[in-house]
């Protein structure tokens, strides 16, 4: 056995060596955390009380950014759009992901192929998805309206209609539920089969088995999935930017798109920072609310009820 003759051999105890090594190993992360996360967060909070265009002028204006924000109809529109999108896409996506996972959990032959078909859309870039679906939703030449025409239905103007643009984006989001589906599939496969066996012996039919075994055992996975998807949905940007530029008539103006415009087109960094912090506050509140409610409906193995 070769003995390591690194400079650690200063006669320090293993424990002391560990402390030094430990901190050295996390030093890159720590520096990154302070410089790229904590520092900027504090900075952006302070910045939200300034009017700033980065280069020439920054002056302190107190709460005026926030006041202007709350009076801006466009801000409220963006909040509305983002909320509708999130509260539409998350339940729909969760439902679809669960359904597909349930279907695939039936010991189907060639599970790998099924899984691939449903997961593949999640592997490509948001830009690719957006450009593809931009054409699919095309009122004249697109796939959807032409498919509807086969059934004699006149499809709407989708992304060119202020009522149908946001629903179009929500529909499109279902195509990407592959990742969520994988998590549910793993969750389903983790449910011990003896539970089902016991229930069958007791005379439970398939529906009862679903509601009283499958769903409760899945609630941790559902909880995690919903939080992650919710946080992501509130930040949706690429679809709005690439497909509709926030239109028509701001029908798809997401909060991040609104923020992007304020920061990089109108060059108002203080105001944009205020928007960012409002978004952050909303996301945190929702996460905490979900976390709090989880005590009611999430069932963890090994915990006593009540």
């Amino acid at each position, binding site marked *: 056995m070769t003995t390591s003759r690194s400079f650690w051999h200063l006669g320090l105890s293993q424990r002391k060596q560990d402390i030094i090594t430990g*901190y050295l190993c996390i030093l890159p992360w720590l520096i990154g*955390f302070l410089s790229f996360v904590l520092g900027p967060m504090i900075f952006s909070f302070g910045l939200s009380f300034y009017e700033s265009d980065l280069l020439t002028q920054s002056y302190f204006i107190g709460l005026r950014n926030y006041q202007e924000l709350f009076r801006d109809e466009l801000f409220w529109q963006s909040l509305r759009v983002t909320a509708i999108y999130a509260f539409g896409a998350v339940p729909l996506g969760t439902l679809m992901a669960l359904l597909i996972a349930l279907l695939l959990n039936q010991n189907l032959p060639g599970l790998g192929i099924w899984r691939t078909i449903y997961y593949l859309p999640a592997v490509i870039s948001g830009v690719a998805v957006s450009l593809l679906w931009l054409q699919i939703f095309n009122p004249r030449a697109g796939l959807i309206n032409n498919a509807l025409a086969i059934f004699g239905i006149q499809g709407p103007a989708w992304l060119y209609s202020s009522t149908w643009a946001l629903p179009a984006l929500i529909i499109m989001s279902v195509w990407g539920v592959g990742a969520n589906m994988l998590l549910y599939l793993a969750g389903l496969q983790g449910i011990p089969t003896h539970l089902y066996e016991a229930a069958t012996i007791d005379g439970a039919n398939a529906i009862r088995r679903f509601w009283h075994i499958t769903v409760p055992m899945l609630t941790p996975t559902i909880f995690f999935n919903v939080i992650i998807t919710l946080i992501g949905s509130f930040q949706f940007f690429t679809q709005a930017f690439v497909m509709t530029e926030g239109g028509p008539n701001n029908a798809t103006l997401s909060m991040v798109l609104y923020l992007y415009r304020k920061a990089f087109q109108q060059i108002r960094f203080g105001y944009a920072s205020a928007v960012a912090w409002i978004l952050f506050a909303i996301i945190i509140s929702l996460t905490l609310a979900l976390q709090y409610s989880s005590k009611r409906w999430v069932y963890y193995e090994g915990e006593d009820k009540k």
Partner: protein
Amino acid sequence: MSTPSAISGQTDQQKSKAAAPRLARKIRLRFNRALLIVLAAAGAVLFLTPWVWMILTAGKETAMIWRVPPVWIPPTYRWENYLEAWSQGNFSVFYLNTTFIAVMNVIAAVLSCCLAAYAFGRIRFPGRDLLFILVLSTMMLPTQVTLIPLFMIFSQLGWVNTFKPLVVPLFFGDAFSIFLLRQFFLTLPRELDDAALIDGCSRLGVLFRILLPLMRAPLTVVAVFQFTYTWNDFFAPLIYLNSPELFTITLGLTRFQGRTTTDLQYLMAMTVVSTLVPIIIFFLTQRTFIQGVVITGIKG
């Protein structure tokens, strides 16, 4: 025969009486299963249709695209569309740029996250658990809250319109990858470390000589995730890159979009090509890739 069977304890008479409802149940189960397969197949067809449509459209001629009633399948597949679109949109540059950034990011992430995850998962030092909670919390952080100050910092440094803001931060770790690798470190038996330490190996030595060779799978997961994420990233390049020579594929595609308003086939062709690399990587590393998705989903 009325002697009970040794296996089921039933006589022949009892067996034939029980046969009818059992058969009905068997048929019902087969039917249910067939129904589920049909549903799964229907869903698969719906999920596949956009791909098929995209690939078919990429091979059409302009006139075919806008014709009503639509031409679903082009009579001849126009492979030239791909070449014409590629040169028209100058995509070689975009692919080179994106490859460079993605490879750099993979190296950076693997290096920094391996070290950090090792410390968080294997070494005891004061404040470790608190700091790891910080790591976790950054995973949930919406990036917009740090976006503007970061832009300002990089502006002051003169890094805007270079690759630096897209590459350098990864050398300081990525919460997601740290979490993933730590999960893996936790599954390795401590005896490996202890045996090496007793023999005089340093903590870092344990990492490099003993543990690293065992880590091919999780490192692959981190590499694949990081590569795919960077390859597909749109927001960061949008913010930091201004000159077309520096554009990544995602930026190049959106720029191309503006220049091909009626020639959808070109846009679709380039979109198809842009999806190839992530798809190929996925197929090559399918099992580890999906394992990675699952590991992060099942909170350890």
